[in-house]
């Protein structure tokens, strides 16, 4: 067992290292900005005095590595500095929005993960039947659609008739049921996009194994097709399925940007797009760091879980 823990510790260390390098990249990217950041923000007409004052305010007169350390130490403690656009602390801007984004992602995940695993298993079980072909063609189309297309079609069909609101305005006072109702369309959009992907991968992971001799063995032992799939194929397909689920969860958290914009949902993605438009660098950096951290964390979890799902690694010789 100790070999497993060493492996997990190694992965964790590697994850932390990756995150560190990413933070350097995100911070360093603004250093690549052509010209002077202060001048860039204030515009060409600014007087040298205002520029100098602004530089001091941003700490631009300090050397880059000092600024990086300050930024990173602050970020670790939840202090991301202040927004250039409205001078408010970034932490305040992010706090409720992060919650909203996570809520939407979890909402979509709660529907899509069970749904896609079930559809994937069924498609593998009834492979090459009409059900499988239809599910596949639909999934393929759904993957191919841009998210805003799916979103606007849903608005056109469901919001037009007044069934659901086309704008998902929520605030901390909105009740839980009301929030679920208002965010149904964005959650459905996300669900449609990720379910297709996860279903296809689940199906492929299982079908990949169906040619293995041990599956043939199970069939020759007289096992039912359902048992062959669930008891013999699925446990061996766990690693790729876990990976694809994690990938899609990560996608749900980071890929909500477009959906949040379409439905005017107050999440992190919308904040990021707004800040990009305003060239509000500290906010963009902070949000990018949070997204990257979530992404790394999920991939790390998937990595560890799929290692744990492999009996060859857990039960050594």
């Amino acid at each position, binding site marked *: 067992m100790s070999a497993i823990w060493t492996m997990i510790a190694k992965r964790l260390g590697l994850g932390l290292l990756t995150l560190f390098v990413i933070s350097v990249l995100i911070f360093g990217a603004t250093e690549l900005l052509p010209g002077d950041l202060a001048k860039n923000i204030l515009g060409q007409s600014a007087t040298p005095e205002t520029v100098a004052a602004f530089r001091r305010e941003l700490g631009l007169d300090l050397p880059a590595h000092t600024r990086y350390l300050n930024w990173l130490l602050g970020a670790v403690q939840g202090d991301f500095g202040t927004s250039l656009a409205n001078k408010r602390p970034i932490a305040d801007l992010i706090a409720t929005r992060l919650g909203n984004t996570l809520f939407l992602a979890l909402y979509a995940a709660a529907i899509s993960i069970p749904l896609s695993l079930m559809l994937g298993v069924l498609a593998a079980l009834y492979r090459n039947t009409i059900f499988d072909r239809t599910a596949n063609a639909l999934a393929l189309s759904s993957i191919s659609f841009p998210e805003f297309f799916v979103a606007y079609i849903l608005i056109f069909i469901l919001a037009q008739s007044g069934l659901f609101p086309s704008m998902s305005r929520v605030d901390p006072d909105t009740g839980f049921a009301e929030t679920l109702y208002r965010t149904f369309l964005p959650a459905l959009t996300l669900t449609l996009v990720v379910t297709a992907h996860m279903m296809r991968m689940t199906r492929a992971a299982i079908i990949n194994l169906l040619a293995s*001799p*041990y599956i043939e063995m199970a069939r*020759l*032992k*007289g096992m039912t097709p359902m048992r062959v799939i669930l008891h013999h194929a699925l446990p061996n397909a766990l690693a790729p399925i876990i990976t694809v689920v994690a990938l899609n969860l990560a996608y749900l958290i980071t890929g909500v940007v477009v959906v949040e914009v379409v439905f005017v949902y107050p999440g992190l993605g919308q904040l990021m797009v707004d800040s990009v438009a305003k060239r509000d660098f500290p906010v963009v950096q902070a949000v990018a760091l949070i997204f990257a951290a979530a992404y790394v964390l999920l991939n790390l979890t998937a990595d560890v879980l799929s290692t744990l799902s492999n*009996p*060859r690694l857990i039960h*050594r010789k």
Partner: protein
Amino acid sequence: MKDTTEKPVLLTMRDIHIDGRSEETWSPIIKGVDLTLRKGEVLGLIGESGAGKSTLGLAAMGFTRDGCRISGGMIDFDGIDLRKASETERRALRGKRIAYVAQSAAASFNPAHKLIDQYSEAPVQHGIMSRAEAERDAVELYRRMRLPHPEEIGFRYPHQVSGGQLQRAMTAMAMSCRPDLIVFDEPTTALDVTTQIEVLAAIRDIVAQFDTAAIYITHDLAVVAQMADRIKVLLRGDEVEEADTRTMLSAPKEDYTKSLWAVRSYARPVQPPVTEGIPVVSVETVTAGYGAADILKNISFDIHKRRTVAVVGESGSGKSTAARVITGLLPPRQGRVLFDGAPLPADYRQRSRDQLRQAQMIYQMADTALNPKLRLRELIGRPAQMYLGLQGKALTERIRDLLRLIELEPDTYIDRLPSELSGGQKQRIGIARALAAEPKFIICDEVTSALDQLVAEGILKLLDRLQSEFDLAYMFITHDLATVRSIADEVVVMQNGRVVEQGPKPEMFQPPHDPYTELLLSSVPEMDPDWLTRLLKEREKKAGKG
């Protein structure tokens, strides 16, 4: 051998036709074969690859692989028409009354479940035993299959158990519901000869103990001679002949069967050992390995001009690693390799083009040794172009000569892709590619082990002829002692990275032997149907004495 002619018939297959799909069309795999099996009888099905042995064996369970279909005939298992029965009815028979033992136990056990869970699955799912009964029964059968630690071994995962033990555990699993019939599909082909003996003995005993009928599929005549009461010979989906084992061995009727029997007797005249002169290749006290482990431990041997040195050993003995050291793919930790008396750079990247040219290699799997996207013209022509600087017409002439040397018609073959050749032809191309470099020395790495016997014999004869024609020195890596017997001048026996014995072939096949060589030699099945019984008795006697 038991007389089963009085027993009731268990399985009848009449005029079986099975088709396989390739692209859009169906082509026949089995073309009207009959088969009758009585209770408790063991029928050996033999034939070369593509004969349809496995397909026929699976059809006895009413099963076809994806892309195959039974297109005609009747299968009657103990009064049940398997072709008319529903899938549910067939499923109820499989595992319960008809069981299957696959070729590779390592691949046929589910890696995610313990052995005992897989043992219990069929009896529990078919409603014969409770889980606890099945587990108790498993221990009992593991004991009967002479598995070590029968109480514990079931609680291991497949990857924690060795190949020979897994194969016995699979036979035990097939027995779990005490079926009337077991289909054994090449159960020992993937095993080393010394392991094979134990598995064969265990299978034979358990089948006899429970009076189970069996279809035993194999390509190895000597193996089938030990196991079967009757033998049926198949060739390309057709039956050649069928007779009881002794009759079939002593008096085969058909020419094809006779030719199969005759392959084993091919041997070339032994050449006298070379005692003088500089050897072409000389391996001097080489120790090598990957990571921390040494795979080769202080080995030395010489290979002389016009001589074939067979390096023999089971899997893991280090025989292929020795080849990698000579070719420079694995630089040794200690020792060196001499070519014509001069040391070769340890790493192939440091060797000169001429040094690379002098030592060529022929691989086991011609499929992976030939780039599937290149035509024969380029495959064979490239070494000639690179090393000898041949261009244009001269190059084409040389390629045509080489094709003639390996007995392929140049006009027909020069522009083909490897996928348009048979297995034996591909291996010939491998030989032509080696010859194109005009080398002094060729390493043949298990070159015949993936081929059918008749085809393999052709390759051996060709290599033999080329050796005398071009004064070549061969290093012949093999696990098959029959191959050693037919082509070697000298033999090097390896075990666990060490050379346990070496010398001229006539001496090696005469006692006294090193104990491992003895074990290896005695484990090779012989065509005599009493061989296994005799061998087991002898070993028992020896063990008793010791």
